[in-house]
């Protein structure tokens, strides 16, 4: 707990600075104060928690799930076959230069206001870190260990299961920790662009009503959700991987 004190102090200081500035500006539709935002969050708790948070979480979870599956599939197949690596790796990297937010409106055109246009944006933002990080993990096995297994008569499959998979596991957790905040951002952006519910959509609606605190309230909720999720994953990671520093 003690190690978190400096960060908490900085956060508190920044919040106080913000509070001071907001009170000075005294125009909540431009710069709402943290206290106003919290109050608004409380006032809006029913629609936020019963309608919009579940909607966004649905998009995030679905997008993340598909991203993990797709990312792992790409990573494993590129590791398995050099031809596939040569064919896919540059394409995957290039796909990241596409400004997702700029083409996201197209997805709304193609897939409508339903959940899939949002899931697609989320996938586009998160499959990359998963595919590349896990791929690096699979490629990062020690050559000597691989050779040792070969002298024991290991097959390609044995090497994958007994060496590559465990070696890549820490990378997998890093990838997930990177992807969770990205997936929340992706879902929120997609909802901003066109949706009927969700935290991003709600935030945009408050904007049109010049409700500054109402814009921020769902954003606070989004960050909290991302932080809590990353926290939970970190706890799981520590239980699963006790040997991270030894490779």
């Amino acid at each position, binding site marked *: 707990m003690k190690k978190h004190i400096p960060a908490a102090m900085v956060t508190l200081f920044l919040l106080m600075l913000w509070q001071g500035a907001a009170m000075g500006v005294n125009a909540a539709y431009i710069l709402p104060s943290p206290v106003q935002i919290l109050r608004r969050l409380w006032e809006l708790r029913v629609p936020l928690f019963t309608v919009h948070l579940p909607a966004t979480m649905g998009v995030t979870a679905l997008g993340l799930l598909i991203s993990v599956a797709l990312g792992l599939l790409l990573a494993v197949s590129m590791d398995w076959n050099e031809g596939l690596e040569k064919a896919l790796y540059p394409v995957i990297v290039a796909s990241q230069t596409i400004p997702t937010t700029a083409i996201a409106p197209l997805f709304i055109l193609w897939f409508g206001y339903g959940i899939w246009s949002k899931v697609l944006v989320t996938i586009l933002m998160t499959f990359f870190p998963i595919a590349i990080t896990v791929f690096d993990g699979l490629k990062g096995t*020690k050559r*000597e*260990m691989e*050779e*040792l*297994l*070969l*002298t*024991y*008569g*290991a097959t390609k499959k*044995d090497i994958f299961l*007994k*060496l590559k998979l*465990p070696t890549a*596991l820490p990378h997998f957790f890093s990838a997930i920790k990177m992807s969770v905040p990205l997936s929340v951002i992706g879902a929120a952006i997609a909802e901003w662009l066109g949706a009927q519910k969700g935290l991003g959509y709600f935030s945009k609606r408050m904007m049109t009503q010049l409700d500054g605190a109402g814009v921020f309230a769902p954003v606070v909720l989004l960050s909290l959700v991302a932080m809590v999720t990353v926290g939970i994953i970190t706890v799981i990671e520590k239980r699963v*991987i*006790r*040997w991270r520093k*030894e*490779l």
Partner: protein
Amino acid sequence: MLEFRNISFRYTQDESPMMENLSFLVEAGAFVSVIGASGCGKSTIFRLINGLETPDTGEILVDGKPISALKQYSAFMPQKDLLFPWRSIEKNICLPMELQGVPMAEQTRRCQQVLEQVGLSGYGKKYPKDLSGGMKQRVAFARTLLSGADMLLLDEPFSALDYLTRVEMQEWLLHQWESTGKTILFITHDVEEAVFLSKTIFVIQERPFSAMEQVEVPLGYPRNRSDLKRQEVVELKEQLIGRLRKGVNL
């Protein structure tokens, strides 16, 4: 036990070959050390035996049969212990048996037995990070033993240990060799280690080499450290060091 017949080998990225027309013979149950300056091809001999490299010409025979027709004829123990940090000691030791599809109950039985043999019973559930360097080498040795081969290839297994641990491990290894009856090929650049452990020493002097000088150590078994002070042993050591230094270009 092991025979090299006219082996020539060159790494594809190298200009000159490592060895040319090399032939030698190792008898079953022997303790043979291979010494030579670094980069002379000691480890390459092991890589050829365990099939990680294929000779350009010639044949390697184990018990009269070409190695391409054999399985599990040799067990390799590298310089670093290379224990998998995510596996418990037990699971590390069982790794070669796991790959060979040995039944679980048999794995557990042999594992307990070998842990006792290497003096580490009670450590099975621990992880590599909980063990000292010497203990880890003993675990690595146990793993090598349980691969089931009669010929052990030990590539500078003690070179990363501190002096006192190394001395202990050498005596321990001799004891293991005497009790298991395995054939041991041992690579080292430490002349004293080679003299203390082996019956026969192969010396690599130049590169490419077509023969290794074969030196018999004038000591019987069991031996102890004070034997190293004997006149003929001291002379042998000096002689070997002198020969190796000729091959060193600073």
